[in-house]
């Protein structure tokens, strides 16, 4: 287990979600699932976050915002697409202004499908994200040593 895996702080962004997935993300933080047990905190500040949870699909209006939040996050960082809309565009995929899943804007590490995505699926996805986070942290450390 690396340093990052015990304290993954997440930031949640609602792209053009119907709010179904957002409520599930928040449900994961509430007493029923209580992800703070694993050190997960929902920060609202991209500079403090390790994991970027995106719900909903990417459209012409929010693609820049998603990119900006991603750019403001500090390495090592991981992106989790929550819900089928965030994975591929979902039921909104052929709307005139929808571009598609989150991977149209930024690199996505873990896909968590579902409509709406279940809190258990979110927790599973974050756990998988943590593994990626650890790999990236190792790579960063190696790079620092090399530099």
């Amino acid at each position: 287990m690396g340093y990052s895996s015990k304290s993954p702080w997440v930031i949640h962004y609602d792209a053009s979600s119907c709010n179904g997935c957002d409520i599930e993300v928040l449900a994961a933080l509430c007493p029923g699932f209580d992800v703070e047990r694993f050190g997960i905190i929902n920060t609202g500040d991209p500079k403090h976050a390790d994991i970027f949870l995106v719900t909903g699909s990417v459209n012409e209006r929010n693609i820049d915002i998603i990119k900006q939040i991603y750019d403001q996050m500090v390495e090592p960082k991981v992106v989790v697409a929550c819900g089928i809309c965030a994975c591929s565009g979902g039921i909104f995929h052929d709307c005139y202004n929808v571009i598609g899943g989150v991977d149209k804007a930024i690199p996505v590490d873990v896909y968590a499908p579902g409509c709406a995505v279940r809190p258990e699926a979110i927790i599973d996805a974050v756990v998988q994200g943590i593994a990626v986070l650890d790999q990236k942290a190792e790579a960063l450390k190696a790079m620092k040593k090399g530099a």
Partner: protein
Amino acid sequence: MFALGNLLLVIVATVLFAVLAPIAGCLLAGLDRIISARMQGRVGPPLLQPYYDVRKLLAKEDVSVSGVDGVYMTCALVFTAFAGGIFFAGDNLLMSAFIITMASLFFIMAAYSSRSPFAELGAGRETLQVMAYEPMVLLMAVCFFMAAHTFMVDGVLDLERPIIATTLPAFLGFLFILTIKLRKSPFDIAMSHHAHQEIVRGTITEMSGRTLAKVEVMHWCENILFLGWVAMFFVWSNPASIVLAVIVALAIWFLEIFIDNNFARVKWQTMLNSSWLVALVFGGVNVIFLAFV
């Protein structure tokens, strides 16, 4: 002010404080999170979670926006350790109070240096917080002097009864501003605990990685120092009183967590007005009382 022997003692105490206070403070912070979670019907993180958080922050990439905020935070840390050293060496209480304010000022400068609107707002509010609690801190020190006839903290060890016997109003007033000093709700206006409020995370919005880790460690040290100030009221010449003082300090700390979890944030006007009122009434009454007995 310092004799050479005293100075050496303070330096040794500072080093010890710099090592031990983060450990104790980290455990307290972990307990805080568990107790808070239980109050909200959750299980909460492991006890060592604050330590894991800081360890992670240290491993993050360095992307400081201003280039100097890290230096300011280092200064804030050093001054916090120094203030703790002065206090726990039994030296001058007033000096300890001033130096911990210096640490706050460096923290404020670190926030200003980022030039982010959120951080600047937070820094402005942090300044207001300093303005709000400082009068009561000074009156507390004055009452301490009048009750113990010295500003030296180790003076309490020669007393026949703890200073709380004659400084109860000042102690209550100090408890009021302690909530501001510990940055707890309802007075967490400069740095909201969770970043979903109007100023994101205020003072620390732009800080990340190492700098943020320094902020965390500074808070741990501050908490220990302020609980030390609480404990000071309950110590007298009887050595067993130190145990009592530690128990009282922990009880007060539990009370602070309770307040934190049960009160919504107030506006800065309310904070400033109420804390000055408390300082005037509680501190003032106590000073007058001590002047006549």
